[in-house]
């Protein structure tokens, strides 16, 4: 392990008596889908956060719920990067790989840093599993792992031994393997076991024997670390807490942050929240979260399909609540026509798109940013709609509030883009004060707004927004719909001048949002220079880290990260033109690049990746180096 950490470029600070401590460590847990790797990773994340380290995680799991055991495509992995310095990404290459079976080793070892540590469960390296992983000979025995350190021992047998007193069946007993492994990992990084013991007691409150068995496995793994340290290569490291702003912290996933942000946004608008959803990976977690928040005036509705989900949300908005729907790419495609109706009837609506690899079903559990065109352009007719993109799990909270604000202030549907990575990944979050946000209370029309008591549902305010009129309000009866209408009265009117006027009004209203959003700032670096990397969404971490490293080496490069994708901030064009070169790293084939070229006639160059995996820092560093060479 020591060799691994010496190769870490960030240098060493802090530490324990045992070994020099690194600033940051990347650990990947990999096992069978049924091995509980996501749960192990989640609990290790929590213990890391409680230890005060900064962190970023990357859960990576197959689309199959229970893929056949031991297969290569059934491997589920969870990577965490943590340290005593600011962490922006889940890390490029792991320092430590925990491989629970041969398939997990095969699919993950290639990513491991040279000299990195492999912890493998020999109990699973039997003939059958080796065949399933397509190994002719055990890699633990044929020397093929010699560029790494290998710590291979029978975790299965050790777990069975540890839980023997509880009389569990073999299958149930082996389920405790992940806790044994976690116990070892907690020892390695000098963590407190108590929060995990408390969590296990809560989780298995109805089956205390399972709680006891899991705790025993956890303790046994921990004890193994202490014992093995005396004899072998295993070392213990203590990473000093990160230097963060004072305050209360927790970990949050993007799905949680979006859910809380929507609740906060509805509160700031003074409205009840209606959420219409239909299960889809990776967006479902938002529906799950909100279904538990009914006391916040939240109604959740699991509709019969994606279209019904958005239609019900629009119906609720018509009725005076804040309608929200959420999905991922394929579901968003289905909602397209209804978005057009919300644009046409000028009703507030928030659409959350947790993007995944596409087209069609694509890569349900993998991340991508390829719905930008769909978000900005993907509807029939001239159908302008604001689009906002969250850059990280915690950023999704503020973005959700901003989406709610735009929706009610401009009477428009708004799309909030996250992606599979943001939705599932967790990061430490300084708990915000919901009262620290500027409220944007909604006023419904209560009296006729036209001459002689006429109701003009399409009269416009200074922002170009029409009044919001709740059915049930006496004297304001009116009809709205998807057919083109007369400006002001909203009555059906296909006259050429009316369609021209209404098309213009809808466009002007959305364009006008640019005047009400903050000017684009340079996230890191200077305004103007040799090179700008312009990103949006979850590429924030790798771009930021790569630019930071390049700047340390003396390169003239800056990072610009855009939240408001449509309309774009008013100063963005001028800002981009102040650099000699502009590179747009995206997890698609160059969608935002095209938008920037179209809007500003700048020679934005694409840097693209569509493997279902986030960018590594190294990939972006290489692009910077090539551009400045």
């Amino acid at each position: 392990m020591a060799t691994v950490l010496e190769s870490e470029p960030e240098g060493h600070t802090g530490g324990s008596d045992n070994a020099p401590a690194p600033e940051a460590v990347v650990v990947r847990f990999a096992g069978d889908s049924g091995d509980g790797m996501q749960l192990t990773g989640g609990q290790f994340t929590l213990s890391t956060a409680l230890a005060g380290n900064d962190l970023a995680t990357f859960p990576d799991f197959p689309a199959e719920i229970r893929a056949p055991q031991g297969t290569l495509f059934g491997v589920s992995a969870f990577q965490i990067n943590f340290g005593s310095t600011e962490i922006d990404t889940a890390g490029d290459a792991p320092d430590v790989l925990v491989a629970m079976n041969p398939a997990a080793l095969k699919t993950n070892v290639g990513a491991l840093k040279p000299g990195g540590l492999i912890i493998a469960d020999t109990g699973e390296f039997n003939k059958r599993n080796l065949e399933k992983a397509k190994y002719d000979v055990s890699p633990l025995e044929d020397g093929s792992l010699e560029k790494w350190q290998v710590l291979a021992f029978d975790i299965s047998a050790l777990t069975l031994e540890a839980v023997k007193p509880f009389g569990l069946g073999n299958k149930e007993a082996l389920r405790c393997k992940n806790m044994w492994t976690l116990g070892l990992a907690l020892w390695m990084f000098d963590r407190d076991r108590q929060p995990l013991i408390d969590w296990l007691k809560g989780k298995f409150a109805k089956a205390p024997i399972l709680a006891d068995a899991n705790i025993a496995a956890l303790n046994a793994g921990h004890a193994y670390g202490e014992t093995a340290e005396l004899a072998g290569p295993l070392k213990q490291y203590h990473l000093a807490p990160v230097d963060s702003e004072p305050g209360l912290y927790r970990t949050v996933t993007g799905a949680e942050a979006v859910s809380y942000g929507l609740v906060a946004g509805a509160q700031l608008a003074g409205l009840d929240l209606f959420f219409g959803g239909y299960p889809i990976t990776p967006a479902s977690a938002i529906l799950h979260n909100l279904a538990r928040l009914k006391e916040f005036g939240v109604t959740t509705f699991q509709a019969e399909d994606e279209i019904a989900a958005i239609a019900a949300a629009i119906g609720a908005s018509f009725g005076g609540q804040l309608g929200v729907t959420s999905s991922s790419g394929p579901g968003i495609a289905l909602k397209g026509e209804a978005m057009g109706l919300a644009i046409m009837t000028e009703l507030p609506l928030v659409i959350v798109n947790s993007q995944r690899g596409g087209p069609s079903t694509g890569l349900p559990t993998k991340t991508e940013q390829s719905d930008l065109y769909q978000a900005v352009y993907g509807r029939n007719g001239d159908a302008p709609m604001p689009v906002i993109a969250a850059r990280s799990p915690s950023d999704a909270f503020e973005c959700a509030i901003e989406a709610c604000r735009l929706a009610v202030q401009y009477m428009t549907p708004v799309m909030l883009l996250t992606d599979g990575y943001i939705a599932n990944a967790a990061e430490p979050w300084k708990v915000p004060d919901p009262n620290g946000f500027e409220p944007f209370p909604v006023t419904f029309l209560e009296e006729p707004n036209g001459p002689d008591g006429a109701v003009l549902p399409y009269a416009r305010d200074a922002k170009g927004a029409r009044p919001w009129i709740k059915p049930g309000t006496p004297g304001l009866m009116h009809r709205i719909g998807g057919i083109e209408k007369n400006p002001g009265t909203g009555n059906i009117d296909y006259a050429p001048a009316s369609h021209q006027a209404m098309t213009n009004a809808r466009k002007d209203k959305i364009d006008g949002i640019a005047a009400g959003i903050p000017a684009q700032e340079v996230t890191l670096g200077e305004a103007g220079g040799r090179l700008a990397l312009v990103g949006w969404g979850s590429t924030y971490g790798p771009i930021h880290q790569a630019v930071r490293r390049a700047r340390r080496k003396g390169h003239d490069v800056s990072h610009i990260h855009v939240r408001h994708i449509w309309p774009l901030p008013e100063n963005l064009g001028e800002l981009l033109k102040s650099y000699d070169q502009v590179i747009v790293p995206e997890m698609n084939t160059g969608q935002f690049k095209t938008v920037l070229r179209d809007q500003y006639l700048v020679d934005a160059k694409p840097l693209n990746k569509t493997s279902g995996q986030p960018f590594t820092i190294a990939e972006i560093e290489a692009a910077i180096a090539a551009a400045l060479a």
Partner: protein
Amino acid sequence: MNDMTPIAKVQTTLKDWETDQEVRWCPGCGDYAILKAVQRTLPELGADPAKTVFISGIGCSSRFPYYVESYGFHTIHGRAPAFATGLKLANPELDVWLVTGDGDGMSIGGNHTMHVLRRNLNTQILLFNNEIYGLTKGQYSPTSRLGTVSPTTPLGSVDRPATPCAFALGAGGRFIARAYDVSKELPAVLKAAHAHQGAAFVEIFQNCIVYNKDVFADFTEKAGAAMGQLWLKHGEPMLFNKGTKGIALDTETLALKVVDVEDGDWQAAGVRVHDVKNRALAHLLVEMPFGPFPMALGVIYDDPRPTFEAAVIEERARASAGKTANLAKLLSKGQTWTVD
């Protein structure tokens, strides 16, 4: 099990329910008669225009909301039930009417029709069935009879038609009724639908005079009315043709049969008494084929049970009991740590 506060009755006249919009259906269209029947019924219900909402999808029938002086929402093809569901959950006090057609409600929106019935949203669903696509110029529809010649089926349609009332009952509907556009009984059927707490499904045969003229004439025209119409009344024998014929149950085959009634002695002929709460009888009546049998009209089935929105409200109240909506507290819940 009436779960909502009844809406206060308001005095209006037919005129109060007319908008200033020019009605744009073809002259002679059956929709005019249905519109008038609705506008005539609403004052009798004591309906409040401010609390009444008409929601429609796409098609000729779906222009309906523009012509009723209430709140209205002309939405997208087939999805009106879903919009209505969101609206009712947002404000259960609203009196929501859904207007749809055989294409809108049975074809593109069949899925939503099924689910709004299954969930039992408290709304009136008026499905105008003219067995044709009118607004797109005369293609056959999912209710068109076998062999219907249309621009898309020049040799006659080969797919079997759906039966809207059977579909609605099968989807879990608790109120199923039938009427036709120019029938004098239509307002009474609408009133019964309105009185039903839950999803009330009314199929209204409508004469598309341009693309499917007189397709229901065999029972709607005077000549065939007596033999062709069976008007159902709860607690009364199922008689037609001026009481000379009736509907009985063949207990061997568990099928309905037509029997002759002599001297008004329907008991002797074995004629069944209609019971709107008998679901098995409702299944037989909605499937009763016209031709060998008369068309079953009126309220076929009416057996309410708790509505969807009442259940949602109850659940929300139960989930919120004893809790306060403190967002700051929610955000700092669970395992946290403090940095000094």
